[in-house]
């Protein structure tokens, strides 16, 4: 029976140390994080050096890797201290840095030799000669432009042996990443230095204007023009990605929640393991798709993997309804004798709620809560306070680290 030994990596986002640990517990082979400088997600929780040390220790103890995104495009003066920064990352044991600006790439390679460098998707690498160029510069891996299709990846594989990383899930830029300064011009926030105001997702009038001020509207009044992409989800095409030779499956979302990170990492871990164990008999589990919808923020598509995106891959008009789940708590402890779970509250929940428990290795069960106590076993109807510790009886065993979610109305 054929199996795949050289499994692709599942690479998850980790905006915080807590999310880093959750991502790894839920099956990520690697996580990417941001430091205090040089990264594009200035509004995500970023890691201090001490937090990086703790994260690296946690990850390496579990055979997982930690990458740091340093993917700004520097202006004059922005690279001051970058050499020392990269040296510190190397000393901490960071497994690679993700960089797009050639100036920063050069600093990393020259001043922190031994620290692997990955080309960020912000550089929009879309052909194999670009991959070869960066490999000859000493880069270990290239994160492809999100405009690259499956057939193009196969062609790249015939011309290069540099590691290929590709986005498989999450939000997407509508333009070539890096080649967009809508935010600079419309909002005075530099898209390539972490300030992106997501102007592509705004609504616009579209018009001809033969002379200044004389607009001839083209926009359908009920449906404004916009440039908002739906999100990517490649769960139904894992075999194609593996067979094309993608080495790392990247999940977008350093700004996203623990609920998202745990759910998405869990699903792709299952799919990758399942395919690699027995490619001939692999079947997509519909439960994986259902699971991804529980944390979806938008509709989902396959981006450019199977051709140029159409109107269906953009968010025009009214949004379609989708399920919404609230992340309500996490399991801190479980007493098998009493069949009692200790829960840390993350959102209001209580007696009568139908709660889904899920955990690493894709374990799931749902039950209606019948009783609820606080830490001192005083009876509660609701758990209203953030991070409060409470206890609930459960019919099936749970584990510390399992999560609780509750279905809401369609949104």
């Amino acid at each position, binding site marked *: 029976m054929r199996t795949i030994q050289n499994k692709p990596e599942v690479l998850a986002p980790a905006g915080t140390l807590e999310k880093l640990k959750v991502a790894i517990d839920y099956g990520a082979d690697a996580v990417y994080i941001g430091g205090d400088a040089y990264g594009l997600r200035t509004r995500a929780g970023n890691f201090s050096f001490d937090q990086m040390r703790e994260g690296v220790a946690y990850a390496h103890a579990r055979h997982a890797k930690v990458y740091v995104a340093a993917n700004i*495009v*520097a*202006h*004059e*003066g*922005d690279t001051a201290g970058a050499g020392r920064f990269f040296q510190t990352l190397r000393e901490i044991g960071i497994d690679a840095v993700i960089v797009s*600006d*050639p*100036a920063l790439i*050069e600093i990393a390679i020259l001043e922190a030799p031994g620290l692997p460098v990955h080309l960020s998707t912000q*550089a*929009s690498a*879309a*052909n*194999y*000669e*670009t991959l*070869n*160029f960066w490999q000859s510069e000493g880069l270990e891996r290239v994160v492809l*432009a999100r*405009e*690259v299709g499956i057939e*193009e990846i196969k062609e*790249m594989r015939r011309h290069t042996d540099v590691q290929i990383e590709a986005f498989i899930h999450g939000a997407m830029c*509508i*333009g*070539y990443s*890096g*080649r*967009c*300064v*809508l935010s*600079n*011009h*419309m909002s*005075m*926030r*530099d898209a*390539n230095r972490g*300030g992106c105001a997501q102007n592509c997702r705004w609504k*616009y*009038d*579209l*018009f*001809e*204007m033969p*002379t*200044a*001020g004389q*607009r001839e509207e083209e926009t*359908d009044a009920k*449906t404004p*023009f916009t*440039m908002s*992409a739906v999100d990517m989800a490649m769960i139904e095409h894992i075999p194609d990605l593996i067979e094309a030779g993608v080495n790392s499956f990247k999940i977008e979302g350093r700004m996203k929640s623990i609920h998202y990170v745990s759910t998405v990492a869990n699903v792709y871990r299952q799919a990758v393991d399942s395919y690699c164990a027995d490619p001939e008999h692999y079947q997509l589990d519909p439960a994986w798709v259902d699971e991804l919808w529980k944390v979806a923020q938008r509709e989902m598509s396959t981006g450019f993997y199977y051709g140029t995106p*159409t109107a269906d*891959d*953009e968010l*025009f*008009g009214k949004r379609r309804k989708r399920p919404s789940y609230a992340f309500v708590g996490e399991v801190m402890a479980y007493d098998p004798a009493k069949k009692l779970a200790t829960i840390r509250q993350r959102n209001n929940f209580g007696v009568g709620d139908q709660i889904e428990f899920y955990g690493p290795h894709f374990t799931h069960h749902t039950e209606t809560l019948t009783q609820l106590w606080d830490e001192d076993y005083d009876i509660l109807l609701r758990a209203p306070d953030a991070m409060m510790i409470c206890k609930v009886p459960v019919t099936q065993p749970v584990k510390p680290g399992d999560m609780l979610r509750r279905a809401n109305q369609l949104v």
Partner: protein
Amino acid sequence: MNLITTVASVQQAEALLAAGVDTLYLGESEFGLRLPADIHQADLKTIVPMAHAAGKKVTVAVNAIFHNDRIEKVRAYLHVLADLKVDAVTIGDPGAIHVLQQEVPELAYIYDAEVVVTSAQQVNFWARHGATGAVIAREVPYGELVTMAPELTVPGEIQVYGATCIHQSGRPLLHNYFDFVKDHQDRADRQRGLFIAIPQHQNDHYSIYEDRNGTHIFANNDLNLMTKLDQLYQLGLTNWKLDGLFTDETQFVAIAKAFVAAKQALAAGTWTPALAAELSQQVVANQPVNRGLDTGFYEIDPSEVQ
């Protein structure tokens, strides 16, 4: 000083050379981004000797973002350009640089990755990889050019007239919209003249069009840095590009003449603010009626952009 202008036709190339520009910039959309017209090889065979006979230069645009299919065409195209003895190409995709260095290392290239060329350190990286110049992003204000200019190891090129591209998508954003609203229109090309604006902003007008390189969106107003040329001259940033993407062919030549006059005045030491204002008015007078002009990011305080 080196005045570089786009070219829309053989006739315009002739007029621009007669007007006194130093370098013609042209190409075709298969390889170059956002050009006023496709100038194919047959016309290059006319234009290149014509420019050289006048003691002028020709740079060809090879600055698109290439996928696998087109990077192979770049290989052959660079040979053609070298055989035609063009003086340089612009390149923004490192894959094309890799190909150039394998195939025609004698062909000069100017690094042009548009919005991401924002520091001397980056320009100098490409200089160490053979670039003979670089096009500086239009988002670099004067306050940063002051520190950048003395650090550059190869000349930095500044766009001083014309449209500023602020977004390139690989998707057909206009046709996707027309499809969604079931208003199946054929045209989303540049000649049609579509704009977008935020509904509350009645004075805004961002050009948008589609071509083989995707969908392109441009800044609200075009650049006119005529009155800033003396500052750029003092910084030693004297490679000036005029982009006639949206400008009528004849009016673009008139605009080029105004910049030639400015260049001559700087060289002769006869530049005055009054002359600059007068020449700037000539630019304004020849600007398309549906497009504004301003100085873009040039005068913005770098600390204002977060």
